[in-house]
Structures are given as C-alpha cells and as structure tokens.
C-alpha cells in the first residue's frame, strides 16, 4: 500500500547489519557489516555465489530473521522487531511456496483476504493480477496442475496483489529453462516499471543481474564488495572477485610508473606505458606491482608491430556471435580478446605474432 509519495527517496536503509548463526566456536557470520540503501521504485539486485548470504539478507528485510546487529528501516521507520505480517513487503520465494490446497485465484487473493479487504475488492484485484500475469484461464486450477513457469507467475501475482511497497524476489527464475527465463526476465522488468514497486531481486546469474537491474550489489562471504550501476560494476570493478564474477576478464600484473589523481601510468610488457583508472579508495605507490583488469572486448588484434602490446596466438574458440582468441603476452601472461563476428575475418593462425591495441581508459587497477 504505497502512500503515493512519489518515486524519490530511500525505500530501505540497512545500516551495519550483521547476522551470526550459532554461538562460540560454531558461530557463522552469514552477514557482516552490510550497509545498503535501496531507493524507492528501483530494480535492485543482489548478486553473488551460492552461500554468500543473499537469501539471509532478503529474510532479514522480510522479517523472517532478526539481524544480530545493525539497523533496518523501511521508508524511514525502524522495523527491527516487527513481525513479517506487519511489514509492507512481500516475497516471491525461491521454491514459490504456493498453497497447494488453494486454487490460483485463492492463492492470489490470500494477502488481501488476510488484510480484511471487502470481497468485491479481493475479486477485482485478483482478476486484475491474473490478467497482469496472463493466468486468467487458469483461475480455478490448483498449483499442482500448473507448469513451473505458470507457478512462477502465480507466485508473482500473489506477492503483487496486496500492492506492497517492496517486492523481494529470491532467484525466482532459477528453476526455468532458458527460453522461459528470458521471457520472464522481460515480463518482470515490465511489471516493475508498470507498478512502480521497488524490486529487490536475488540471483547468482551475472547476465540476468546486468540486464535487469537499475543498480546491483555484488556479495561474497556475507559482505557487499561493490555497489553500483550495471555499467560501473562491469567496467569499473574495484576488486578481483567482482571482476572475475561478472563476465570474462583479463587480469594483468603490472608495474606502477607514475601516479596522478584518479589515475596511474603502468608499464606494459614490451616497454610501453599506458594510463589506467584506479579503483576508489586506492593509492598505488610508484614502483610497486598492481593487479589491473581489462575486458576481452576492449582489446583489438592489430598487425604485428602496432598497438601497445605484442602477443602470440594460442588458439581461437568460436561462440557464434563472437570469437575468443587466446593469446600469450611477450612476458608470458595470458590474454583473451573477444572479436565480434560481423566481418568475415579469418582467425589468426596459431603461433602467429600479433599486436594488441587496448581501448583507451579501459584498464582498471584493482584493490588487493
């Protein structure tokens, strides 16, 4: 029940939230020092490997787990200690959790019924929701008579029907096959835009996170490593884990020659120098080695002797829309270039020596 105060401001404020399971020697820190602000009306994604604490964080927001430490506010109101049924937050569960003894319509109307809404309103909203997720024809079916994708849509409609301020979605698409998954991704995004409800979406699929989110947080081992727009996370990762987890990356170990402002000059194998961006909060010292990343599509193969780098071709793998060319730099470090197959280019021959031209400003120095 959004009170209609527009699309601005902060919906959920999480401050220094920690969650410890067990005690003493067996204590396990599922969440540590989570600081996070989710804005009203945004599509926010939590991305991370299995067991990193995504579900735990959602459960803390929904009220199924009490944080061991820290504060949690929804629309400015402290909700620590509030029971799940008192929070204007609905969840689409990882396994859907549809009520097996109720029909599709009864499932969708359940929240409104519990809120004590009049029968006519429940019926009207249920119809509207079934229309929204294209399930009108199946109102009288039981969940056991639905396919996985249909169950998923009912779970979504059930969570949307009470018009919550926030919808929490725990890997809602992970059980679907690729084609249905793509369809549902589009559908989810459409529903989010149409309803204006704040979505907090959990996934361990990096492509899904990049394509759907307004902003995302990358988590590992109970911590948030980086928070930003898909563009920032992809092009300006601050940590090795983030760079590695999202997409394919080339890691290079390079020497710092000079540091100026938010950038640094690094020495490339073969003697040339290149300007690189430096991750926030990091000031590399001149003369030390740092770890830097560049995406495979940010380098081009050029004739031998041109470009910033020289490399030997080790092989090529065809991926349909593009080809990955595996190379070795003159100092032995591996490097991969992704080349779009829009021209009828011949793959470079194995053992051939080529030049590499790097997109200016693409190289990023990582923390740690």
């Amino acid at each position, binding site marked *: 029940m959004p009170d209609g105060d527009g699309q601005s401001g902060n919906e959920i404020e999480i401050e220094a939230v920690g969650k410890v399971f067990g005690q003493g020697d067996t204590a396990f820190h599922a969440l540590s020092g989570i600081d996070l602000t989710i804005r009203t009306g945004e599509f926010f994604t939590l991305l991370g490997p299995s067991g990193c604490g995504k579900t735990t964080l959602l459960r803390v927001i929904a009220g*199924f787990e009490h944080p061991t430490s820290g504060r949690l506010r929804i629309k400015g109101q402290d909700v620590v200690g509030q029971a*799940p049924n008192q929070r204007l937050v*609905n*969840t689409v569960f990882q396994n859907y*959790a549809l009520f097996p003894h109720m029909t599709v319509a009864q499932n969708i109307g359940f929240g409104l019924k*519990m809120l004590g809404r009049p029968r006519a309103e429940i019926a009207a909203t249920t119809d509207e929701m079934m229309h929204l997720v294209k399930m009108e024809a199946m109102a009288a079916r039981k969940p056991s008579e639905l396919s996985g994708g249909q169950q998923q849509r009912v779970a979504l409609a059930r969570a949307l029907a009470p018009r919550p301020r926030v919808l929490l979605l725990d890997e809602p698409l992970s059980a679907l096959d690729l084609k249905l998954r793509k369809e549902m991704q589009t559908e989810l995004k459409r529903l989010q835009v149409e309803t204006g409800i704040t979505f907090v979406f959990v996934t361990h699929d990096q492509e899904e996170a990049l394509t759907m989110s307004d902003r995302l947080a990358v988590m590992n081992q109970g911590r948030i490593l980086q928070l930003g727009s898909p563009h920032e996370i992809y092009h300006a990762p601050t940590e090795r884990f983030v760079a590695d987890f999202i997409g394919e990356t080339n890691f290079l170990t390079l020497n710092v020659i000079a540091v100026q402002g938010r950038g640094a000059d690094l020495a490339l194998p073969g003697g040339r120098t290149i300007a690189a961006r430096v991750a926030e909060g990091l000031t590399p010292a001149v003369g030390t080695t740092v770890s830097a990343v560049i995406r495979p599509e940010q380098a081009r193969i050029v004739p031998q002797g041109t470009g910033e780098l020289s490399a030997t071709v080790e092989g090529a793998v065809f991926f349909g829309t593009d080809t990955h060319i595996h190379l070795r730099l003159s100092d032995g470090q591996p490097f991969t270039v992704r080349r779009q197959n829009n021209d009828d280019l011949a793959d470079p021959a194995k053992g051939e020596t080529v030049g590499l031209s790097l997109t200016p400003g693409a190289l990023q120095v990582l923390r740690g």
Partner: protein
Amino acid sequence: MASREFNVRALPGFGAVAIFTLVMLYLPIIILVIFSFNESQSQSAWGGFSLKWYVAAFNNSQVIDVSVRSLWLALVAAGIATVLATLAALATTRVGRFPGQTMIYALINQPLMVPEIVTGIALLIFVAFLKVQTGYAGMGYMVAAHTAFCIPFAYLPIRARLETMDLTLERAAADLYATPVQAFTYVTLPLLVPGIVAGFMLGFVVSLDTVVITEFVKSAGQDTLPTYMLGQLRRSVTPEMNAIATLFLALSLVVVSLFFLITRKRG
C-alpha cells in the same frame, strides 16, 4: 554385464509365499464370515444359509448395549486423543527447540513400547485407588484410560504430516499479512487434515479393539464389545459371535474406505 532392474516377482517361490501369506491373513476371517450365515450351530459343518444369528444378535439387548458403549467410547476417546495429540505434535515440531524436548518426545511415544498388560495393571491399581477415594465409579475412568492409550497412536501420523510439511508455506502466509492464528487456520490446519483424520482413525480402532485396558479399568456393567465377547466365548461358542464380528468387520471396512477416499481427495 548390464544389470537388470531388481524384480521381486522373479525370485523363486514368490507366488507360493504370496498366496500362503494371503491365505493365512484372510482365510480365518473368511471362515468366520461364512459361518455367521450358518443355519446350524456348528462352527465346522455347513447346515445351510440363514440370517438367524444376525437376528439373534439384534434381539440381544446386551449385545446392543455393549456395542453402543464401545462405539461412543471409541469416538469420545479418539476425539479427545486427537485434539491432544495435535497440540502435542504442534508443540514438538513448531515451537523451536526447548529444553527437555527429546524427553517429551520419548514420553509421548513410550506407551507404544510398554506392554499393554503393564499399562493395564498400572491402571487397575490407580483406578481402584481413585474409586475408593472419590466414590465415583462411572465411565469417566474408561474415557480417561482409553484416551491416554490412544494418544501416541493419534500423535504419530499427525507429527509425521507436520514434519514433512513445507515450512515456507507458513512463512508465505506470514509474509502475506496472516497473523499466526490465521496462518494456522488457513494454511497449516487444512494441510494437516489427512494426518488428523489418520490419527483419529488409528485411535478409534485401537480403542475399539483393546481388551486389556477395558478389562482392568471397567466397573460392573461397563463391558465393551470385545470384553463381552470374550466373556461369552468362555461359556459357549455360537455363530451369534460370528455375526457380531462380521458386522464389526463391515464397519471397519467402511471406516477405512472413507479414510482412503478423504485422504486421496486431499492428495
């Protein structure tokens, strides 16, 4: 060698064992039923078809008395036991761990392990003491004893059902603004019905069946059908007993079929 799927039918002697088992299980019952329709009083020689033993049973006011007592006692005892067992099952599966939980679980199930005769004698002594102290000698003792005896039987299927139930369903209910009471009423309870029905049926049958508990607890004139029949059999065996037993068999078949239909519909 590609191993073929294990097939019990392929074992030597499968058919013979199966037939032998079925015969041992059902032949005595079939004979009992057949001789309930016997014209003659013999349990071994067929004297022609007759319903006279059924007529005799229905005209025997004692038989009607004890049957009615058996039925209402079983209904009441199983009913109370089911309510208590449901509460116990909820407490042992939904309340989170509390000190002494394992102990309580063992205490609830223990009566299943204790020989019935021990329970019977314990009840005899205890009830005799209460009768002397209070002067009350009514059916209350029988109801209490049967209820207590039924609880572990009713508890088992209810607990099993609660344990296999998906906990996220109750969480989903809470997430959709159901209070704990509403979540129980609209989600847990409807899903628990098959377990509760099974628990009630088990309790009902156990109460209907027990000779030992009744024998040791009853006062004069509180015979149930099993203790009455046992008393009669000591004197003379007439096919009237066959007729009564057959009627109870029919009743239990109806109960079991009903149970089957209810649980299957709930699926």
